[in-house]
Structure formats: structure tokens, C-alpha cells
């Protein structure tokens, strides 16, 4: 699904990641951890091709990321749901329109997916906030909305970059539950976090592996929780 083979990424001469090799299987659940600035976000950006590796091979759905055209990258991103810590939304659109955005840009008629959108909004607990604009929402609501937007296209992989960074513990648990539920539905999930309590809390609920990035390289891979 996603495969890294001796991947390195450097920017302006500085190595941000080096010698990363791993293979992410379908239906797996991974936590990506490490100190701030270790390269967790860079790793995720390589996964959804916002960045391209300086050296090494990154394969996304069997395709070499380096050789993919812009339209192929766009098509691949429809199979990857991304949740950012800062939840990038279009502030002039309602929450419902933001959640449906991946459908809109894919050229699908949103009216045909009304039922899916409604049940998704119910699932993340934002039924009553559908018509609100993103700036009117709390941090937790924005994170749940970002998760809803990430899965509206029924992606194969969900990448979450510090999804609980701006929310309280209770909301962190709720978001974690949603991610675990998605994993049980067969989605591959990668959660970048430096919150070890969150990782421990997941232990009882899911078979997850922890990837630790330190000093720009993967120091521990494949260890069960």
C-alpha cells in the first residue's frame, strides 16, 4: 500500500529524514511518534506526496511517487484521507460543504451522497453544526469535521498529523475511538503524535504498531504496543 525503501528527504542541505525503509500493510494501524521536529510531518507529507523524496523509493499504491504526474497524485490523494492538526478548511463554505469537498472536486454530484454525508455527520457528532462556518467551531469539532472530510471518499488510508494536539483528553479519546473504528472497517491508519498517553489508551482497543522517528531516522519499527 505504502512502501518506503531507503528514503531520505533533505531541504536546503539539511537532512530531515534519512534511510527510512518500511512497508505499511492494508488494514494496519500505526502510531508515528518522536520529539517535535523529528520529521513526523515530513514522513506523512511523503505519504501523500506533498513532498517527494530526495533519494530512495516511495511507492504509493504500487506506483513510484517520483514518476507520478500531477493528475495521478490527485487521483491517489482521493484514496488517502488526511487530518491535519490545524484542520485546513475553506472558511467561506459551511461545514457540510467542507466535508463534501472531496466529492465536489472529484466531480461527483453531492446531492447523490446526501445520505452518506448525513450519516457521516451523525457519526462524528456534528449533525447540528452542518450549516456553521469552520471559524464558528471549537477545536474538537474542527478535528472531527476534518476526520469526516478525510473519509467521505471512503479512502484506503487515513493519515492523521497530531489530530489531538488542540483538544482536551476527552475529545482525544473520542477521536481515537473514531480512528480505531475506521481501522476495524479495514482502513489503514497512521497517526503521528507525541502523546504517549494516547498511544497507551489505544493499546486495549487495537493492535497497533509504533514507529519512532528520532535523529531523522526510524529507530524503532514494528514493535507491538
Amino acid at each position: 500500500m505504502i512502501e518506503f525503501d531507503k528514503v531520505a528527504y533533505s531541504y536546503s542541505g539539511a537532512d530531515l529524514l534519512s534511510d527510512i525503509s518500511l512497508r505499511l500493510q492494508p488494514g494496519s494501524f500505526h502510531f508515528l511518534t518522536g520529539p517535535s521536529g523529528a520529521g513526523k510531518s515530513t514522513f506523512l507529507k511523503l505519504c501523500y506526496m506533498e513532498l517527494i523524496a530526495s533519494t530512495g523509493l516511495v511507492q504509493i499504491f504500487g506506483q513510484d511517487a517520483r514518476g507520478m504526474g500531477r493528475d495521478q497524485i490527485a487521483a491517489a490523494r482521493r484514496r488517502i484521507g488526511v487530518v491535519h492538526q490545524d484542520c485546513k478548511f475553506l472558511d467561506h463554505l459551511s461545514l457540510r460543504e467542507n466535508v463534501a469537498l472531496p466529492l465536489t472536486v472529484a466531480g461527483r454530484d453531492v446531492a447523490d451522497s446526501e445520505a452518506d454525508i448525513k450519516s457521516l455527520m451523525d457519526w462524528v457528532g456534528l449533525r447540528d453544526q452542518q450549516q456553521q462556518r469552520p471559524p464558528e467551531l471549537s477545536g474538537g469539532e474542527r478535528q472531527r469535521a476534518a476526520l469526516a472530510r478525510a473519509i467521505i471518499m471512503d479512502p484506503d488510508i487515513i493519515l492523521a498529523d497530531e489530530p489531538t494536539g488542540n483538544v482536551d483528553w476527552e475529545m482525544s479519546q473520542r477521536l481515537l475511538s473514531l480512528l480505531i473504528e475506521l481501522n476495524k472497517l479495514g482502513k489503514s491508519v497512521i497517526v503521528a503524535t507525541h502523546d504517549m498517553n494516547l498511544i497507551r489508551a489505544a493499546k486495549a482497543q487495537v493492535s497497533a504498531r509504533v514507529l519512532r522517528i528520532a535523529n531523522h531516522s526510524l529507530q524503532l519499527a514494528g514493535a507491538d504496543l
Partner: protein
Amino acid sequence: MGAFRALLALLRGDTQADRVVPPTGVSASLTVLTAGAMAFLCVFALALSLATSRLAERWDSELARSSTVRISAPAAELDTQTRAAQEVLRLTPGIARSRILGEEEQRLLLEPWFGPDLPVEALPIPRLIEVIETAEGYDTEGLRLRLAAEAPGAVLDDHTRWRRPLVHAAQRLRLLGWVAIALIAGSTAAMITLAARAALSANAQVIAVTRLVGARDSYIARAFVRRFTLRTALGAAVGTILGVAAIALLPSAAEEGAFLTGLGFEGISWAAPALIPLLGAIVAFIATRFAAMSVLKGVT
């Protein structure tokens, strides 16, 4: 067929997609205003081109078929030489007809320089014979030689000397008109490119988010292209209507100022300005698409 479908899609629009890019008030107004002003100027440039084109053709065809024989001789010989010259003209192949200009016609010719009450009969003015040639024309040099032999005071003026620079000037004016239209189209493209780039820059967040969720470049570009193309077409249509109205309200043509008042359209050429909004829309389409695609290349 593909281009036709793309055009239909552009006109039909996509309500969902249009919502993705927020309206940009100032750049929208400026685009409409700019397109309107450019279309207004374009109507005048077009009118100038078409009018000078007509003028060049008229001078070229009408003056090319007429010439003048001027007879300067002592008063006692004037009638004799005039008759001799007329006889030569009558017998020259390629001349359809000739006639002596009357005093009134000569007075009218001199009126712009000497005023309306010129006593032509009291002045030593040469006698003028207007010569109209056939489509085949005549042998200029042969006629000159025969006139020199039969009427020594007769001088043939086939208008070539002053007709050529006039026709040349009219052709240059026509060319300038087309150059002006090309410059207007280029300036419009440049201004729309700048406006589109400003709009794209103002919507960097929209572009980044839509790319993130899987939008293709063509999808993002289309939202901007459609908006700028329609705005330009609207502005150009208004500018064209105002320009055509201004041309139509010019004073009607008269002999005294035929060149100035002849600036305008005749017959079918009144339909030519209808192409201006279409041209504007095409320019906007190309300029915005080019700007959008070049900006999007820098977005991951």
C-alpha cells in the same frame, strides 16, 4: 468537438465547483471595467481600420480611373489647343470619355484656397479637361507625346504623383488600426493575467486545500478561468455596445468632412464589433488558463 464540449461546459458552469472559489469583489469589478474600456477602444480602432480600408480602396479605384489634362496657352490659342487636345483624347484607345471643366467647377476647386467669390474668368487659370479611362486604361507615355505634338500647352496629369502617397497613407492608417487592436488584445491579456494571478494568490489557501483533497489542476483552473472569461465577456459586451453607440452618434458623412465623419461602419461591417466580446472572452480564457496553470505548478 472536444473544444465545443469544453465551451459548453464553460458556459453551463458547475454550481458546486463555483462555490469552492470565493467571489473576489475588487478583482471582479476591475476585470469587468478593464474589459469594458478595452472593448470601447477596440470599437474605435476597428472603425478606423474599416474606414481607412474603404478610403484606400476608393482612392485607389476611383482616382486610378481619372486623370486631368491641363492646357496653359495664350488666350488666342487656348480654344484651338483645347479642341486639338480633345480630338487627341477622343482618338486615344482606353479613354472612355473626357470633358472640359466649367468655370463653376474650377471655382469650386479653388474655393478652399481663395474663398467662395473668386472671379475665375478674370484670372489666367489653365483650362482643365477631365479624362475618364476604360477598365483597360490608356498608354500614358503615348498620350503625352501625342498631346505634345498636337497641343503643346497641354499637360497630362494622371494623379499618380499624389494618389500613391494618399493611398499609402490610408493603408498605413488601416495597418495602425489593426496594430491598435492587437495591442488592445495584448494589454487586455496582460491585465487579466495580473488580475487572475492576484485572485489565485488571494486564494492560495483554497488551492492548497482543494489539491490536498484530490482536486486536479484542470478542476481548480476551470473555476478561475470560467469566472474571468465570463466577466471579460460581460465587460467587453457593455464596452462594445457603448462604443458602437458612440460611433453611430457621430455626425453623418458630408462632402466637407468625409474623412472624419466617414469613421464608422457601413452595411455588414456594423456586425463586426459583435466579435469583440468573443475575442475578449478568448483572450481572457487563454490568459487566465495560462496564469492558473503556471501558478498551480508551484502548488504541491
